[in-house]
């Protein structure tokens, strides 16, 4: 098992590429970015690794830190743990066996489909839901960015998250156990590498917040794998029969997939982080009274829309749908006795809180309102905070000044000039 850092983040800034524009600033769903001295800065307590900034940055200055292929050599036996979205990446083929076999050419000894774990989680969810054991509407625990969003912004919804492990974690443990039986090697000699569509999964493996212990040895970006395989895949002659997942698990790659396998018709499928926030707001106000299952995915279209995928999410979805028509509904699930339950709910992290002391917080909040009155309300981001309200917040927290607002500064300069001309004050010579 790996040691974990509490605030490890996959999403990072490439300082040299950053122009200090305000694109990422305004898209960040937790207001975790500021621009200071012409460069973006990610506030690590707030970042949920959704990867929205990676998606929108016009200068590619945001990247996701994942593992390289060199890490494979740390293990005697390696397994590619394949997210179902991977099957939708190739224009040349929809043959699952071929796509999975191609991974063996990259140095992996075996492959294991996460769709198998997904099928098990679907089954478990159906049973829990049917047995009335879930707080409804329940929220799928599959998307780590959504779980972290809930942990920082929606503390009241933490208990609505389904208390099951992610398909990735369940599959990783199953894959390792299977390999131990097959090879006789020790568990630590087996490397299980997740082929990931997103940064959030990389963080889920490495941070100390999402899961306490992980069975994933490393996370490799799907686009890195794609780059090595795009040309090679059509030259592969000997195709092994490796596909062992059914459509129920594979459809988790696209939005609506896991929800439709939840066993209730009262489900909604929400994709894209802004839409997720809107629905969670409503849920917090008790408005979703006729809904039982909420599939909430941070990326547009679901995992196929992840920032580390190679293909656009619409095309990938079409391919996944076609592939699923050829698969049996259920297939090789996970038969080992492995816990399906998670190792604990996410912990509320009140990062928006102004101060530990309520009275101080109230004073700061009032001061914030006063400052906000003086700001122009344009939410232009030129000050380096995402909007006027956050600038007011940054000012009361002591991280910014009112004159960071260019409109406030302009107004003050005008006043100064007026004062100078009205009182016939002579300005010193410039030369």
């Amino acid at each position, binding site marked *: 098992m790996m040691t974990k850092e509490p605030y490890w983040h996959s999403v990072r800034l490439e300082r040299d590429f950053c122009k200090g524009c305000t694109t990422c600033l305004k898209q960040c769903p937790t207001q975790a970015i500021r621009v200071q001295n012409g460069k973006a800065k990610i506030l690590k307590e707030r970042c949920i690794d959704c990867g929205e900034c990676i998606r929108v940055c016009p200068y590619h200055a945001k990247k996701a830190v994942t593992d390289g292929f060199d890490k494979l050599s740390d293990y005697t036996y390696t397994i590619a743990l394949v997210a179902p979205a991977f099957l939708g990446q190739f224009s040349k083929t929809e043959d699952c066996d071929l796509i999975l076999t191609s991974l063996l050419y990259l140095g992996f000894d075996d492959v294991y489909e996460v769709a198998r774990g997904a099928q098990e989680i679907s089954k478990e969810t159906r049973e829990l839901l049917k047995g009335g054991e879930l707080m409804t509407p329940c929220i799928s625990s599959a998307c780590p960015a959504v779980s972290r969003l809930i942990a920082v*912004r929606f*503390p*009241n919804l933490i208990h609505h998250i389904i208390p099951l492990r992610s398909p990735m974690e369940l599959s990783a443990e199953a894959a390792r156990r299977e390999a131990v039986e097959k090879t006789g090697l020790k568990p630590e000699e087996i490397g299980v590498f997740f082929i990931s569509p997103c940064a959030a999964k990389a963080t889920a493996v490495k941070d100390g917040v999402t899961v306490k212990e992980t069975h994933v040895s490393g996370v490799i970006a799907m686009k890195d794998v794609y780059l090595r395989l795009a040309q090679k895949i059509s030259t592969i002659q000997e195709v092994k029969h490796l596909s062992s997942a059914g459509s129920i698990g594979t459809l988790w790659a696209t939005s609506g997939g896991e929800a439709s396998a939840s066993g209730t018709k009262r489900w909604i499928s929400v994709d894209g982080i802004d839409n997720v926030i809107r629905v969670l*707001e409503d849920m*917090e*106000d*008790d*408005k979703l009274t006729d809904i039982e299952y909420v599939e909430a995915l941070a990326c547009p279209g679901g995992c196929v829309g992840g920032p580390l995928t190679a293909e656009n999410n619409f095309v990938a979805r079409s391919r996944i749908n076609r592939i699923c028509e050829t698969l049996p509904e259920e297939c090789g699930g996970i038969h080992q006795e492995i816990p399906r339950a998670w190792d604990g709910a996410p912990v*509320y992290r*009140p990062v*928006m*809180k*102004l*101060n*530990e002391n*309520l*009275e101080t*917080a*109230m004073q700061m*909040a*009032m001061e*914030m309102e006063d400052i906000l009155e003086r700001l122009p309300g344009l939410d232009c981001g030129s000050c380096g905070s995402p909007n006027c309200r956050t600038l007011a*917040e940054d000012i009361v927290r002591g991280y910014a000044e009112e004159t960071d607002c260019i409109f406030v500064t302009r107004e003050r300069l005008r006043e100064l000039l007026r004062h100078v001309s009205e009182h016939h004050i002579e300005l010193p010579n410039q030369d």
Partner: protein
Amino acid sequence: MVFHYDVDGNDFTLAGEISSKVKKRLKQLGLPPEVIRKVSIAMYEAEINMVIHANGGAIDVEVTPQAVHITFADQGPGIPDLEKAMQEGFSTASNEVRELGFGAGMGLPNIKKNSDNMTIDTKVGEGTTIKLVINIA
């Protein structure tokens, strides 16, 4: 700490906006999640009531270290039979309103359920004032 809001009558799309704003502010104050939950549910219901029955009104929220006090005041038709209005499922909302998914008769009972103290002062033809207290500790 006091916040004042005016509720626009007859616009369902705006209903809920104020409770959402208040929720954000209470999160910044770091109030316990359970308090925030009660406030936002009670406020949303009361806001909807104001829009459906009273053509809008005003909301005042006062936060003290001990409790959140909310006052909803409108100049609407008033509640003729308060006892009935407090029963779950009782509603005088129009069909048009019901078609929008409101008016299920859960408003007042739900507001009461999500507060630690509720007082209603209503006069037919003059209006209604509801005062809520939600304790912090």
